[in-house]
C-alpha cells in the first residue's frame, strides 16, 4: 500500500508470499501467487537487515508468477528476507482538504514533520477515463500574472498547457512563479505542485517561492528529488491529479496542477520498460509512452454540472533542445498548445524567455475576450503575433542587407520587437501583473507600428485605443 493512511490492519489478515524468485532493477518476481490482479498495490515486508516496508504495484501476472514494480527499487533487498502482501485493489490515496498546506515526498508521505495526511474518503490513484459527453468545455482564464502567458497564450481553466524548455533556462522559476501567483479571479483556487527528479537546490528554490501560498493552506507540494527512488516518480503525478480531482469536483475549487519535470517521469517509465525487456520504441522509450502520458494529461478538465476545474501545467525539458524528442513530441499531441522557452530570448536577458511565435494556447478563444478578459484581447494578441512574424523576417533580411537598406516601415518593425520584448515580455520573477496592465502594455507595443500595418484590428478598436494617446 502506498498511501500514508496505512492499511496494516487489513494487510495483517492477507496472505504473505515469500517465494521471491528474481530481482532485477525496479522489478521483483514472486512465485506461487493466486488471485492477484494487474495494477494491484503491494507491500514488501523486509526482515533482517534494513527491516521495514517498501511499496509496489503489480505489472503483470502469468499463472502463479507475478511481476511487482518496487517504487523504492530493489537495491539492498535479500530474497529470503523479503515477503509480499497484496492489497487486493489498485493503489488508493486519501483525498480531502487535509493535503493543502503540506509538503510530501513522491509517494505522498509527509516530509514537513507533520502527521500523516488522513481523510474520510480515498480514491484510486490511476483515475478513470471521463466520458467526453460529460465534459464541459473549458472557459474563463487562469490569471497567471505573467504578461507573456496572459496576453498571448492565455491559460484556460480545465486546459493542459505544457512549458517546453531546455536545460539551463529558468523554467522552474517560471513554473514556481505561476504556482505562487495564479488565481481564478475571486473563485476559490488551489495549487498542487508535483516536482519530479528535482535537484535539492531546485527543490529548495521551489519551496521558498511557494512558502507563502503553502502557509495560506492553498497548496500541496509533492517533492521527488533527483536522488529519491526513480520509480516513485511514476506515482507522483498520479497522486497529485487524484488529490486535485477531488478538490475540484467534490469541493468546487479551481485547481492548477504543475508537473515538473515530465522528462524525468518518462525516464522512470523507460527504466521500468527496459527492465521488463520490452521492445524499445523511439529513443528506447516504450511504445505505450503516448497512451501513458495521455492517461495523465487527460485528467484535466471540467465536468458538466460541477463548479471546479483541473488545469494541468506540465513542465518538460527537451534533451538537447530537440522538440522532436518523443517526450515533447507526444506531449504536444495530447496537450492543448505549448509555451516554448527560447535560449536566444534568455540570452538577451529577458525573463520569462518565452518564444511567442512558437507558443500557442489552443483554448485561448474560450478563455479570453469579452466578458472573460476584455473585448480587444483576442484581435490584439493576433495582431501582435502577426507583426512579430513579419518582424522576424525583417530581422533576417536586415542581417543580410544591413539596416540601412531597409524601408522605413521595416525599421519600425525592428523597433516593434525591442518594445515588445522590453515593454511586454520582460518582468520580475515576483512581479504579478494585472490583466488590465498587461493589455495596456500590449497597446503601447502595437502603437509603435503605423495604423495601416495593423490590419487585424478593427477601426473601432484602433480609434478607441490609439487615438486616446494622441
Amino acid at each position, binding site marked *: 500500500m502506498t498511501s500514508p493512511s496505512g492499511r496494516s490492519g487489513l494487510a495483517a489478515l492477507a496472505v504473505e508470499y515469500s517465494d521471491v524468485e528474481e530481482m532485477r532493477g525496479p522489478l521483483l518476481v514472486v512465485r506461487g501467487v493466486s488471485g492477484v490482479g494487474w495494477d494491484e498495490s503491494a507491500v514488501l515486508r523486509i526482515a533482517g537487515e534494513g527491516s521495514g516496508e517498501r511499496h509496489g504495484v503489480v505489472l503483470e501476472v502469468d499463472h502463479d508468477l507475478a511481476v511487482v514494480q518496487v517504487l523504492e527499487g530493489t537495491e539492498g533487498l535479500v530474497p529470503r528476507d523479503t515477503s509480499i502482501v497484496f492489497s487486493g485493489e489498485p493503489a488508493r490515496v486519501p483525498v480531502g482538504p487535509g493535503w493543502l498546506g503540506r509538503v510530501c515526498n513522491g509517494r505522498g508521505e509527509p516530509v514537513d514533520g507533520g502527521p500523516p495526511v488522513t481523510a474520510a474518503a480515498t480514491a484510486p490513484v490511476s483515475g478513470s*477515463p*471521463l466520458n*467526453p*459527453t460529460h*465534459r*464541459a*468545455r*473549458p472557459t474563463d482564464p487562469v490569471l497567471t500574472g505573467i504578461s507573456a502567458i496572459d496576453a498571448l497564450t492565455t491559460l484556460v481553466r*480545465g*486546459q*493542459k498547457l505544457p512549458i517546453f524548455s531546455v536545460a539551463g533556462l529558468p523554467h522552474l522559476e517560471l513554473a514556481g512563479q505561476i504556482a505562487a501567483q495564479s488565481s481564478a479571479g475571486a473563485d476559490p483556487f488551489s495549487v498542487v505542485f508535483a516536482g519530479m527528479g528535482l535537484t535539492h537546490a531546485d527543490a529548495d528554490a521551489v519551496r521558498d517561492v511557494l512558502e507563502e501560498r503553502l502557509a495560506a493552506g492553498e497548496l500541496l507540494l509533492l517533492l521527488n528529488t533527483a536522488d529519491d527512488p526513480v520509480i516513485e516518480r511514476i506515482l507522483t503525478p498520479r497522486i497529485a491529479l487524484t488529490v486535485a480531482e477531488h478538490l475540484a469536483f467534490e469541493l468546487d475549487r479551481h485547481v492548477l496542477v504543475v508537473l515538473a519535470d515530465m522528462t524525468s517521469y518518462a525516464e522512470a517509465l523507460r527504466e521500468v520498460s527496459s527492465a521488463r525487456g*520490452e*521492445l524499445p*520504441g*523511439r529513443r528506447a522509450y516504450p*511504445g*505505450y509512452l*503516448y*497512451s501513458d502520458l*495521455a*492517461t495523465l494529461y*487527460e*485528467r*484535466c*478538465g471540467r465536468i458538466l454540472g460541477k463548479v471546479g476545474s483541473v488545469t494541468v501545467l506540465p513542465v518538460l525539458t527537451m534533451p538537447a533542445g530537440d*522538440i*522532436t524528442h518523443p517526450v515533447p*513530441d507526444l506531449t504536444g*499531441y*495530447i*496537450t*492543448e498548445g505549448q509555451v516554448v522557452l527560447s535560449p536566444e530570448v534568455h540570452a538577451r536577458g529577458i525573463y520569462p524567455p518565452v518564444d511567442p*511565435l*512558437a507558443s*500557442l494556447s*489552443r*483554448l485561448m*478563444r*474560450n478563455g479570453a475576450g469579452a466578458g472573460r478578459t476584455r473585448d480587444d484581447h*483576442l484581435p490584439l494578441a*493576433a495582431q501582435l*503575433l*502577426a507583426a512579430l*512574424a*513579419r518582424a522576424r*523576417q525583417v530581422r*533576417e*533580411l536586415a542581417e*543580410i*542587407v544591413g539596416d540601412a*537598406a*531597409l*524601408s522605413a*516601415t521595416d525599421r519600425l518593425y525592428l523597433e516593434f520587437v525591442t518594445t515588445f520584448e522590453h515593454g511586454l515580455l520582460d518582468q520580475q520573477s515576483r512581479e504579478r501583473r494585472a490583466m488590465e496592465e498587461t493589455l495596456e502594455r500590449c497597446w503601447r507595443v502595437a502603437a509603435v507600428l503605423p495604423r*495601416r500595418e495593423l*490590419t487585424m484590428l478593427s477601426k473601432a478598436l484602433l480609434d478607441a485605443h490609439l487615438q486616446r494617446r494622441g
Partner: protein
Amino acid sequence: MLLQQIAKWCAAEVIVYVGCGERGNEMADVLAELSELADPRTGRRLAERTVIIANTSNMPMMAREASIYTGVTVAEYFRDMGYDAVVIADSTSRWAEALREFASRSGALPAEEGYPASLPSALAAFYERAGRVTTLGGRPASVTIIGAVSPPGGDTTEPVTAHTQRFVRGVWSLDRELAYARHYPAVAWAGSFSRDAEGLGQWYARHGDPEWGRRRARVTSVLAEADRLGDLAALVGTGSLPGHERVVLLAGRLLREGVLQQNALSANDAHCTAAKTAALIDAVLSVVDACEEAVRRGVIASEIEELDFAPLLRAADETPPDGADGVLARQEQMLDLVRGLR
C-alpha cells in the same frame, strides 16, 4: 479547428466526425459547439445530421483502432440510403500508433519506424472506402474521407504521411510558418495538391463559372512566382528588384492576406461562398494588373507598395459571405487609387 469549420460548412448531407485519440477538451468543445450551432443549410441544429465517434486518448488503445472503422461503416450505411456522407477522421496518425502499439505487444516484427509491415495496406484499405456509388434504389450517393495526419516533429517523410499521400486524391498541407504568422487556414499552396482540379474545373464550367480553371491556374502561378522572388528578395533585399518583380511580390501578399487568409471567428469571413471567393480573386488580380500598368507608366514601385490596400484586404472580413457585389465596389475603389498614381 479547420476540420470543425469544414464539418460545419461542407456540402454533405451526413457528417461523421471521428475523434480518434482526440483531446477530451476538444471533444467536449466539438460536442458543445454542435449542439448550439444552427445548420447553415437547413436552419435546424447541425447536430441532427452529424454522427460523432468520440474516442479520447486516455481510452484503451484497441478502442482507438476500432474508432476509425466504426466511423466509415456508419458513413457507408448512410451512403447506401442515398446520402452524401463525409467522414472526418482526426487523426489517422493516432490510429496508426494504435496499430503500432498493438503490433509491438503481439510481438510482430517492426517494419518502418516500428509500424507493422501491414500499415500501407491498412491505410489503402481505409481510404479506398471513399467513393461515389449508385445505390440499389438508383440514387447517386457518396462517401468522402477527410483524414488528418499529424507527422511527428513535422517530418513528412515518416511512414504514415508518406503512405497516405500515395493513396489519396488531394492533400491540404498545413504549414508551420503560416501557423506561426497566424495565417489561418495555414494551408500551404506549395505542399498541397489536388488530382481532381481538372474535373472540378469542368464541373464549375457546367455550373456557370467557366473561368474557374483559368483563375486557379493564374493564382497558383502568381503564388509560386511570389515565393520564388521572396526567396530572392531575402538575399538581395526588395529594394534592388525591378518594378515588375516587386509587383509580383505585392500580388503574392495581397492574395495571401486578402483571399487565402480567413478569420474563423468573424461571422462574415469564417465561411466564403464560391462566388465571393471568385470575386475576391478577381478583385486582387485586377488590382495587380492595374499596378503592373502603373509600373509600366513609370510609377516607382515603392509608391505602390506604400499604398493603403486595406479596403481590399478587409473586403473578406467586411462583406457578407455571399457578398460578391460589396467586393466589386472595393475593387473599383482600389483601382481608382492605383490609376491615380503618377
